[in-house]
């Protein structure tokens, strides 16, 4: 079979948007509907169950607030990483990605503390529908945080070696998404009591 040299136009970008960025945006669109479906379902139930307010008062508001701050800060450092990479400062970008990773790790640690505290107090998933939603939504979100951390760690390794600068933007977009989902979950599950 004839062998052609690699056709260069795979890089042809008909819309002048980098292909990777386009892919990430479509990926995020698919994630939005997953969380969208879950959040919409929760809100419709919550409407019919004003008594869930009492259950929600058992969530740990200070832990939630702390985590919100941690996550927002880690979004800031990812922006700083992106700013650094556009100036060609790979090591600075890597350091900022490191801070973001740290933020993710703290978030997961606090979440683990919350879960164990709540479970010890008898607030298990099967206790009531509110807690089922609480664990499903925060659990799915935590999985996304974990996935984001793995992605960031991979990019960090590449960036330190001076590779793949465009990927900083892509993991950054994803990290913002994870952050925004939390911004919805925090008031819905913790504060609305």
């Amino acid at each position, binding site marked *: 079979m004839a*062998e052609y040299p690699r056709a260069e136009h795979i890089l042809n970008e*008909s819309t002048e948007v980098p292909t990777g960025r386009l*892919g990430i945006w*479509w990926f995020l669109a698919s994630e939005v509907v997953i*969380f969208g479906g879950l959040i919409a379902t929760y809100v419709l139930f919550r409407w019919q169950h004003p008594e869930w307010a009492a259950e929600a008062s058992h969530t740990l508001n200070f832990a939630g607030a702390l985590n919100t701050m941690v996550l927002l800060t880690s979004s800031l450092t990812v922006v700083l990483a992106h700013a650094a990479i556009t100036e060609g400062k790979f090591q600075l970008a890597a350091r900022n990605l490191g801070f973001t990773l740290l933020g993710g790790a703290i978030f997961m640690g606090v979440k683990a503390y919350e879960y164990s505290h709540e479970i010890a107090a008898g607030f298990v998933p099967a206790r009531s529908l509110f807690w089922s939603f609480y664990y499903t939504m925060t659990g799915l979100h935590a999985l996304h945080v974990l996935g984001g951390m793995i992605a960031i760690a991979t990019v960090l390794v590449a960036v330190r070696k001076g590779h793949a600068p465009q990927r900083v933007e892509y993991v950054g977009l994803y990290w913002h998404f994870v952050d925004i989902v939390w911004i919805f979950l925090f008031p819905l599950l913790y504060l609305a009591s």
Partner: protein
Amino acid sequence: MSTAAIAHPKSFWREYVFSTDHKTIAKQYLSTGIFMALVGGLLAYVMRMQLAYPGQAIPGYGTIDPQSYNAVVTMHGTIMIFWVAMPILLAAFGNFLIPLMIGAADMAFPRLNMLSYWIFFLSTVVLLASFFVPGGAAAGGWTSYPPLSGSAAYSGGQWGVTLWLLAVAMEFAAFLMGGINFITTAINNRAPGMKLFDMPLMVWMQLGASIIFLFSVGPLIAGAVMLILDRVAATGFYNPATGGDPILFQHLFWFFGHPEVYVILLPGFGAVAEVLPVFSRKPFFGYRMMVYATIITGVLSFIVWAHHQFIAGIDPRLATAFSITTILISVPIAVMTFAFIATLYKGSIELKTPMLFALGTLVVFLLGGVTGIHLGTAATDIYLHDTYFVVAHFHYTLIPPVFFGFFAAWYYWFPKMFGRMLNEGLGKAHFWLTFIFMHVTFIPMFLLGFGGHHRRISNPQFFEAMQGPEAERLQIIATAGAIGILLSQIPFVVNSVLSLLRGAKAPANPWQANTLEWTVPSPPPHGNFETVPQVYRGPYEYSVPDRVDDWFPQDAKV
């Protein structure tokens, strides 16, 4: 995009197994899909034999108890939709055709593409394994409604439904990856000169299907997670005893499930749209109208879902609203059908095998669509719901894209895929036998449905209305037809195998078609195009006046 991803593979493993070449991945999806079609077809045979001769031993299977019958129905539906229709129509032909038709060397993300296939492969293994676990495969219907599916006590065993959910979730993940790839590639990697409105309709249809899938599947993924938790973590999302709501799952399922019908239909229609102009030597009638109709169908498909729940206890005012949107969606679909028919008008029609299957798609789908009017109207649906009228109706709408659309694509693109021509005589025999037996199978089902035969019932004779010799005769005719359909696939298999081995070598452009895939050798080499094609015109310029050739390739200068 790194060069490494599309550099020529060296080892056997990289070339045929863990390949990143979109053409190899297409063939992997295709062969898995065809294998699963065989499994799904054999399950259909088991059901039909049981319905015609309840309680008697089925040759090759033995007797079947009600619980196993439920599992067979469930797995037949699941396999045909998720493991046959989607991998073949969307993944196989989308993967093969999108880069070739838009003049790209490969998909935008070749490694993601490979990952998508292997996750799909894993999901296939999990699904097939679920036949052999204690309690048997899932038996809650392909819709897997709770409370039936929500508790092990109702659904046979703990394992069947859980594995089913796991397999379906992995399948969705695979198709999300594939869909993101399709969308990004079609939007961003078109050859220079190819504007969006120069893309062949097949690419539009694949794009439309991928976008519809991507926006509809999310809520069901969430719903499936909740269902898994109901089963394994004792939550009560769908259990009224704990304040949950079983109807919630129906909403989440059909918010996806109905758009899914169009996810399957559109690529089938895409194949028809490519075949018709080539075999009538005429430009496609109303290309832009077709694109707009696709978009409108996509949008409307998101607001029809509750027509599956007319008798589930939803608010009657809501039922009226959904009746209206349901009838409304037949408008863009009718536009497509008229565009197809108008394309044929006064063309020089050549009834080659791909053309026969394309026309078959239209004829069968028309019958499916017309019977949908009865079901879309809430008043008549209340009587017909969950009868064999519904079973016949959705087979009349699904078989056109899945069977006839696939075969139109198979006979049309086989030379490009494998570099060999198929035999016309065997192809025509395959078409006519399949076409005739399709009606022999499903027309009796309409009549049985009117007579009150419920679907998903292992023995129709539980019902008085189904006990007479008349009903029995119809059951036997339908079963004979089903066996006929299965046997009619023999010419297809013989034809394909013989042609692969000894068929005439296919030239680059055997049908004298315009689209870019016909400008490269058959089969196309790794990397597809020797030089980047430059596109000058739309895909359907046939019989242009003042030209010697009656076709005008998209990349031909002047």
